[in-house]
């Protein structure tokens, strides 16, 4: 157990979406998009959240932001004032003062900025919402933010269309930082960017983190990017956490066959290293009707009879390393 209390402590987080059917739209079932996820994020750390599309990583991150309301579980957050609150249980009015502390960077730098507002208004809006009514004061803060993300302050009177994808992502980061947040949730922040621009934005995120002591929850599907930026990585599959470990340990020896399969699927940028065989067949099962036993067993090449009937629990393999596999620690995947 770490000595200090984590900044964010997610316990048993659940988010079910109802499936309605028929004329009366009766609820006939639930999509268990996030089904009992536990993790902690320490202050100043980056936790990477990975998985295929449909695994619930975006839903989980939206719950933490309370962009959507979780169905169950606790999201314990240590506020700047030092007390711990459960974000999942707060009423909207109680949540509002905390919104400044938790901010988001979006995937699409083209869709997430208002094209009719100048940078001053785009980046300055969170300031206005948080009570900075004086326009001169806001302009000063926006200039400071633009400088912080490597853009020229003179740009603040231009509109988003004048900027390239990489520059827009910097603008989105500046907006997220406007209110001095402590926790930044970044959902695929570099996946829409070109290789050379991607490196620039990753460097910026790392630099800002050390300068401002930010905590990142970094949601992405690109394992090489997540590996580069994260201290620890959580792997999700069909709404559940299947493995969580420090980055080095995870890559040195993954303790879940799903993690291992994800790693093998990444094309290596070296023609002399052929991507290993053992491609993961099939697709992520629907969270509305997950398979019996271990959710991964229909795609798992190590699956045995036990996996079809008995759902494995998340258990500790080594300090800080947990896996949801019956054979974790006894087998190399």
């Amino acid at each position, binding site marked *: 157990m770490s000595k200090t209390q984590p900044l964010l402590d997610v316990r048993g987080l659940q988010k079910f979406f109802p499936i309605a059917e028929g004329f009366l739209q009766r609820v006939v079932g639930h999509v268990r998009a996030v089904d009992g996820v536990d993790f902690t994020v320490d202050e100043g750390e*980056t936790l990477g959240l990975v998985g*295929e*599309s449909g695994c619930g990583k975006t839903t989980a991150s939206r719950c933490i932001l309370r962009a959507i309301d979780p169905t169950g579980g606790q999201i314990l957050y240590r506020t700047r004032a030092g007390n711990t609150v459960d974000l999942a249980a707060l009423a909207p009015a109680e949540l509002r003062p905390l919104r400044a502390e938790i901010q988001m960077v979006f995937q699409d730098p083209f869709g997430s900025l208002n094209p009719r507002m100048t940078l001053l208004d785009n980046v300055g809006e969170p300031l206005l919402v948080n009570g900075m009514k004086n326009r001169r004061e806001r302009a000063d803060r926006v200039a400071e933010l633009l400088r912080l993300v490597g853009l020229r302050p003179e740009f603040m009177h231009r509109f988003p269309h004048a900027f*390239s*994808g*990489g*520059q827009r992502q910097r603008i989105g980061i500046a907006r997220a930082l406007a209110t001095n947040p402590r926790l930044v949730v970044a959902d695929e922040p570099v996946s829409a960017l*070109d*290789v*050379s*621009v*991607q*490196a*620039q934005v*990753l*460097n910026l995120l*790392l*630099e800002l983190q050390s300068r401002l002591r930010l905590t990142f929850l970094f949601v992405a*599907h*690109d*394992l*090489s*990017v997540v*590996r*580069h*930026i*994260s*201290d620890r990585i959580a792997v999700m599959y069909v709404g559940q956490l299947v493995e969580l470990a420090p*980055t*080095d340990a995870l*890559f040195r020896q993954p303790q879940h066959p799903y993690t291992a*399969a*994800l*790693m*093998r*699927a*990444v*094309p*290596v*940028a*070296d*023609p*002399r290293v*052929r*991507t290993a065989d053992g*491609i*993961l*067949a099939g*697709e992520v099962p629907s969270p509305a009707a997950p398979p019996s036993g271990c959710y991964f067993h229909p795609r798992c090449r190590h699956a045995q009879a036990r996996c079809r009937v008995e759902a494995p629990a998340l258990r500790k393999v080594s300090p800080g390393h947990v896996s949801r596999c019956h054979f974790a620690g006894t087998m190399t995947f």
Partner: protein
Amino acid sequence: MDTNKAPLLSVRDLRVSFALDEGLVRAVDGTSFDVLPGQVLGVVGESGCGKSVTMRAILQLVERPGRITSGVIRFRRSSSNGADGEVVDIAQLPPRGPVMRDIRGGEIALIPQEPMAAFSPVHTVGDQIVEAILLHSHRWQEEKLSRRDARDITVGLFRDVGISMPEQRIDAYSWQLSGGLRQRAMIAMALSCKPRLLIADEPTTAIDVTTQAQVLALLRDLQARYNTAIIFITHDLGVIAQMASYVVVMYLGRVMEEGPVDDIFHAPKHPYTQALLRSIPSLYGKTRVALPVISGALPHPFNRPAGCPFHPRCPQAMARCSTAVPKLMPVGAHQLASCFLHHDEAEAA
């Protein structure tokens, strides 16, 4: 002449420009490369480098206000018995003429980036493929194909690309299929007329890594089975390393460097290729350290730098780079590069 060495497609000094109100955008500015029969050619470059426009030019699909202003696109057609036929210059063919219509989809097929946008949502995927087969039916047999036959061919194609339950899936609409299945159906459509050249424009960008691995394995398998030449366009250097045998690196509408995949990755000659390779996070490198980046940003298309297009961002730029455009010349045994660090040849002004 050894026909295996003669290129299937030969692009020479291709220029495509878009006359916009704000000025002329030279999207492709003197691009040259060859595709040999059965070769997988990888084209890498960042957005705005002209890779997609080049491919649209090869299919004569450049839309107004874009225009092929000069250059040659020599394509070796197949004759009716499948052997090599006449060589045509696609750049000179009318886009809507009978020859171009026969080549497009028939001899050169395209796998687009967004299969969701490429399939019509109001027709079943099967119907759309059947239509393509009937349009190019002489590639399957001499006499006219019936709809029934075309449907059977489509079922066979679906099975070939690894779609389970093809008889049912053929009657699905594109929005009923998952991303991976949709891309497989798109590949089936591209293969439906037995093309000699397949252009895959970022075919795996919109899908998951695991599905990407499946699609890449499928393309590799089909390529080996039918010996189709593939032009594989992507910005993902990992995909290029795993798929291509020969690589063309583009920047601002020009070829910076080209060569066999091993040379490009292990002995890159052009500063742009070198910088690009350094800037990607790997699965083995040191984590949480600053990645080497290419300084500056891509110039605005109206604002092309004079001389070598890369010189404002190049760490090794010399005085000459800002005035003269380096030619694509052989450097070393198999590579070509357009860089004054390696030769002195400039394009004629």
